[in-house]
């Protein structure tokens, strides 16, 4: 992701992936919205970055979609604060990171000053 148009490209790719995995309409919307928030974070705060899609499968056969959103920006100094609703240093509403966590089943962040940020989120399909 280097430009604003790339945010739309990310949404398209993630929407197509949710359809591929067999998500219902509400889950599609949840995952695309979470992707939009995380991609914008990486674009605005991280100066751009990459989004990787994976298709994990549980031993039970349940399928999922995993997004890894990575940037090499300044990192998040206070992660707890950044996960709190209403906290923002950018142009959103401050619901981006915490909101993405609520929209997905699994959520992990690796970040630190000067280390960039990697957010990994997964949503599992309902069977």
């Amino acid at each position, binding site marked *: 992701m280097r430009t604003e148009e790339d945010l739309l490209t990310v949404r398209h790719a993630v929407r197509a992936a949710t359809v591929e995995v067999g998500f219902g309409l509400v889950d599609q919307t949840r995952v695309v919205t979470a992707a939009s928030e995380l991609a*914008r974070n990486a674009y605005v705060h991280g100066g751009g970055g990459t989004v990787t899609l994976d298709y994990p499968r549980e031993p039970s056969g349940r399928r999922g979609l995993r997004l890894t959103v990575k940037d090499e920006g300044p990192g998040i100094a206070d992660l707890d604060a950044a996960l709190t609703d209403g906290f923002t240093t950018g142009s*959103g509403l401050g619901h981006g990171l915490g909101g993405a966590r609520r929209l997905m089943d699994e959520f992990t962040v690796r970040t630190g000053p000067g280390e960039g940020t990697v957010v990994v989120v997964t949503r599992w399909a309902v069977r």
Partner: protein
Amino acid sequence: MNGHRSPGVPILRLGDVLVTGLLNELDDRTAIAFTEELTERISAEGARGVLIDISRLEVIDSFVARTLMELTTVARLLGARVIVAGMRPPVAITLVELGIELVGVETALNPEQGLAALGWRQAQQPLEGARRGTAR
């Protein structure tokens, strides 16, 4: 793409109400351009109400939500009432889970109910001339 970009969305005028809609391919810059154009039109045409159809929007993230809230506030300062109509149910569910309430933004189930709330009424009967021309 640089400089001003037209939002590419028609803004129709019905009496003192402006009617428009947002398309799904809404990027950040287009959202800002749309806000600016709509604000200009409200002022220039003395609009009393604005109806925004969002039934085409498949995603409302926090940026789009903020744009809608700011637009509503700016319109109110100009004396116009904004109603956002036609939100898709999955979008409504996702907004609630994101923790966004669209504070101050009036909503309607569909454009027809939104227009009714703005005081716009459908004619009870077709006009004399229109009826004569209708073949059934």
